[in-house]
């Protein structure tokens, strides 16, 4: 049984074959899976907010899209991954509750997904698949043996990216 590494909210983990990285119950948060298919090194981040410059204070860079992805990428490169081979898959960014007048804070899922796309582009990482939006939670698992990013939901089925 391969090791299953849990990634909590506002956290990221890097691992290598044959482990799997899993994050449970993403709502408006976004899960970002980076994977190098040759060295089979991968990382999974569970970010909560788009932008660290708009927040008041934090000791935790893993909370934000703009600060988490560069350090996760750095860790992967230190472990031997090659940047040009790394691909990204993202999931989450849902809006869990619907109000008639959706304020900015209710649309944070959408803003998270958008911020992640922008940061990936800035880092020059290729995004190959995404499953974002909707109004339901997702559990995401990155299999480091084959790079498959599996997304489980309560009643919207399961899919593999």
């Amino acid at each position, binding site marked *: 049984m391969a090791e299953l590494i849990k990634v909590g909210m506002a956290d990221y983990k890097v691992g290598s074959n044959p482990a799997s990285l899993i994050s449970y*119950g993403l709502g408006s948060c976004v899960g970002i899976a980076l994977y190098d298919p040759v060295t089979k090194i991968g990382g999974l981040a569970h970010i*909560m907010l788009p932008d660290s410059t708009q927040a008041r*204070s934090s000791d935790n860079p893993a909370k934000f899209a703009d600060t988490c992805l560069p350090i996760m990428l750095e860790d992967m490169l230190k472990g031997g991954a090659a940047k040009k081979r790394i691909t990204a898959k993202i999931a989450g960014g849902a809006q*869990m509750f619907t109000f008639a007048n959706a304020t900015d804070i209710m649309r944070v899922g959408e803003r998270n997904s958008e911020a992640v796309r922008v940061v990936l582009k800035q880092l020059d990482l290729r995004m190959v698949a995404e499953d974002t939006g909707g109004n339901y939670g997702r559990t995401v698992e990155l299999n480091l043996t084959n790079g498959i990013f599996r997304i489980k939901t309560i009643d919207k089925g399961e899919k593999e990216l």
Partner: protein
Amino acid sequence: MSEEVLKLSELQLDALKEVGNVGAGNAATALSQIINRKIDMTVPKVCILPLGEVPDVVGGPDTMVAGVYLRVFGPAPGSILFLLPRESAFYLVDTLMGRPDRESNTLDEMDQSALLEIGNILAGAYLNSLSYFTKFTLLPSIPALAMDMAGAILSVILIQLGQMGDHALVIETEFTTEADGVKGHFFLIPDPGSLGTILAAIGVKV
């Protein structure tokens, strides 16, 4: 790092617990009247948790729950979230609707509406206590409902707190009925600026 919640004294936490106690008592009485069963509640826990650990309070981020979410408006804005395990949500709705046997694993429109109303009544009962202690007029928004993983539902409030810091002040109460019935968690999460306002109003501002 100047996170407000990390600087709370024992006295302040106790005061918040007492407000929670009366609020939860009101809410338990209201719930008990709605379903006509005796409801027990635990003394509220007031804890300061790293954001990522909050879902563990209700059994982990992938636990299947129903959540009713309301915003609180007034001088001390915040959020209220009432979380029930899925089975408890079914039990509550079926008891309310006078249905002996559950046939499906989903909530129809009527069921959802009933759950929203329950959330509304509980929030109102809770806010009455908070208003009494603070002398503030606090009003709940229209409730919203979601049935999903606890982590996903909690992310809504945790993200709001995440903009201000890395910890959440959680005033948490657990409800149980005597038999198999309902188990639920009630969360009051003041917006970061509101905490000081509430503490000042109940006279325990440092």
